[in-house]
């Protein structure tokens, strides 16, 4: 059976532009890699997304690159938890059927300000909002979060190990005989990063849908939560994209 890898995600490095980065800021879209397939013969191959982790040959640099990915994932997870609370806070200040008034506690240009803006113009939220982007994202998610994922670790462009992951935990790995402890450790950490990313992406879905339901119920939006999805998605996306939040300080 042939397992194709039409979708490929590459571990972003520090120089990655945000435009090509995924919503977590950890991965970016990469070119398909037909040669990576576990080739055999079968007419209709299932699509399995490839998560490619190309690391420098220098051990310290490679470890740093993976650690940076883990740190970005952790930061995204924290921001995702924030997004839910912050969306709730905006909704808490709202009342069904009552227009939003200017709230001086919301900084201009913030995700909250934009959300309030959309909610004051619910018509535009559906018609001209980020619905297309959300549809594209959900399409991509369907492959991100499917039954399987293929993780490939490369050292200086050379594949050294691949793992096929099932959502239920099963793992099949094939690696080079002389992988060595360093390569083994890097691949294990890479698999961990992919597993964490898949879980985080699912949490994004849960967060956005939950937010959409909350918006539609709280504001009695006609058309139900689906029309609120783009707005909730945009809000979550903006919170996730925040590089550095203002933090309170110790006395």
């Amino acid at each position, binding site marked *: *059976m042939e397992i194709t890898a039409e979708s490929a995600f590459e571990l972003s490095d520090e120089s990655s532009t945000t435009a090509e980065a995924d919503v977590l800021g950890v991965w970016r879209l990469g070119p398909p890699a037909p040669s990576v397939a576990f080739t055999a013969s079968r007419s209709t191959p299932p699509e399995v997304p490839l998560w490619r982790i190309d690391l420098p040959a220098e051990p310290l640099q490679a470890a740093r690159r993976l650690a940076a990915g883990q740190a970005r994932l952790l930061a995204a997870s924290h921001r995702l938890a924030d997004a839910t609370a912050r969306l709730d806070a905006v909704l808490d200040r709202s009342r069904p059927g009552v227009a939003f008034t200017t709230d001086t506690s919301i900084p201009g240009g913030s995700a909250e300000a934009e959300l309030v803006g959309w909610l004051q113009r619910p*018509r535009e939220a559906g018609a001209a909002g980020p619905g297309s982007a*959300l549809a594209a994202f959900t399409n991509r998610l369907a492959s991100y979060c499917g039954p399987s994922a293929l993780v490939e670790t490369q050292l200086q462009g050379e594949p050294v190990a691949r793992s096929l992951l099932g*959502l239920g935990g099963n793992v*099949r790995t094939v690696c080079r005989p002389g992988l060595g402890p360093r390569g083994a450790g890097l691949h294990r950490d890479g698999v961990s990063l992919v597993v964490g990313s898949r879980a985080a992406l*699912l949490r994004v*879905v849960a967060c956005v849908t939950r937010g959409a339901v909350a918006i539609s119920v709280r504001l009695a939006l006609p058309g139900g939560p689906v029309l609120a999805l783009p707005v909730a998605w945009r809000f979550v996306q903006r919170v996730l994209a925040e590089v550095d939040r203002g933090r309170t300080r110790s006395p």
Partner: protein
Amino acid sequence: MARDAVVFNGIDATTGAYLLPPMSPEAVSQIARGQVLDPADLKELRWWHHRATEAVFGPKEGVDPRNLAETGWGVVFAHGADPAVREALGELLDHRRSEAARVRQHRYREFVGDNAYRPGESKQQFLARQGAGPGPADPDNVPYYLLLVGGPEKIPYSFQYQLDVQYAVGRLHFDTVEEYARYARTVVATETRDGVPARRADFFATRNPGDPATALSSSELVVPLAEQVRGERADWTVQTHLGEEATKERLTRLLGGRDTPALLFTATHGMGFPNGHPRQARHQGALLCQDWPGPDRQQAVNEQHYLCADDLGDTAGPLGLISVHFACFGAGTPRWDDFAHDGSGRRTELAPHAFVAALPKRLLGHPSGGAIAVIGHVERAWGYSFLWPQAGRQTAVYGSCLARLFDGHPIGSAFEYFNERYAELSSDLSTALEDVEFGKQPDHLELAAMWTANNDARGFAILGDPAVRLVGAAHRTEPSHRPVATDVLAARAAPEPVAEAATPGPPEGAELDFALLDGVRHTRERLVSALQDLAENVGAALERAVDNLTVIEVATYVSDDLSTVTHESVGKGFGAGAELRALTRLSIDGDAQLVVPRDLGEADEALWRLHAGLLEQARAARAELVKTGASAVAGLLDALKVL
């Protein structure tokens, strides 16, 4: 001090020395091996640990722990309790009845008279009389949130520990009826009025000179927790009071008046006194502040060094506070020592009788409006609860508990992480002790760690109503039904129509307005299609995962040329071009099958480590992935079915 020695929190006020000297892991291990575990308790703890690793712990599935109408709420009095106490709590009981009995009357229960706790009763005996057995709390039998009313001589700590594994339990005990009435007024006031206290969380940790215990609890517990809250709760103000700032004067201000936060987390030594000492009942468990010059002085601790109940005046109360005290005896003291044994192996007496610490009683029953809950430790507190040998810092239990509090969970629900840790450690410890009993060479460090951590997790207790929530925490609008994999998949197979009345009606004319907008319609159609695809895809993946939940299979192959490897199918192994080197099948009941080649040599060491690492990751991630996936699908279905 010997490396890896077990260091205990707690200072003997009369000598200024540690209540217990640092002990070697061998000594602790020896005590652990002499411990007799109750078989019934052990069986249940294992069951809870097993359940918690596969799903979400708490009440039975389908019950939202944040909704008292679903969970129920009950109060348990000691047999023969003074009726005036029940009367004094009347305001709180009426308030909880209005919440818990909203859907079904019997989800509010008062266990008094014949149904009260009887002297000497075990948890199983008590529950059996109420028609409940082991297993998750079923609010239609016994409510999930249970408030014990009475001191530990009337309702023992051991009953609270065991009941807490299955239910969310708090305890209230005061010396006067008036204090019960004050507490009831405080809780009702904080839950029905706005404005108190501010959205502020404070973290207070001493670093007494020459004292490794507080150095560790400050740097490895309090600082990381404060950072976590800062990072995750942008709408909260987080303040830390560390080392030199952690003075008695500062703590006094935090525990009354305008400087009182909504949440206070302290990590200090707790004061201890010899059995029967005149100050023991009043000052044991008081919080030793930075004012103390450290153990090297080896002199009696001055009352100016610690904060006790007597230091809190009547004028400024800690209204609405939830306070967490990581300190020995911070919540109370049992009569018999859980740790030290005399030469003949008998437990020594810590106090003439068990008691609840005076400081939390003062905080909860303050005349100017008190705290709504105090979490503290009964007996001594150990560093193993946040530091694990060779693994370093382990604050997930504390962090998860705080996260739930900030998410609006009642404190009893947030506290479940400690109960799960207790169940896990008890289960692991008993297995390790069984192995030793059957001849395995004991690993002293491991046994000591497991035993002390087990006692530590068991000893944490809630004082106050377990249904109170952090003031200012998020109030969620999530559906009350908590999705689980099986529910989600069932819903996917047969989506239920949603009654129109379930959704608030739109403003007049608005729906027509929207329907006429082609852009809206187009966007909506695209979204619906994309969401349906996503729900089906993730749902199918979940379905497959759930079907295979009973076994995890990890296989590791080698191949000289990765590009030529063939794959039989996603659920099977690799075919031509790959040679199987290790295969592990781990079933849910713990049975493991391991296949490795006979000639596994040093060259395969790295491969074997990779295999073991991936197996460990798979075990750790499986439940989380399935749960998260189920939550995502549930959200998608919610969004779609309201169409």
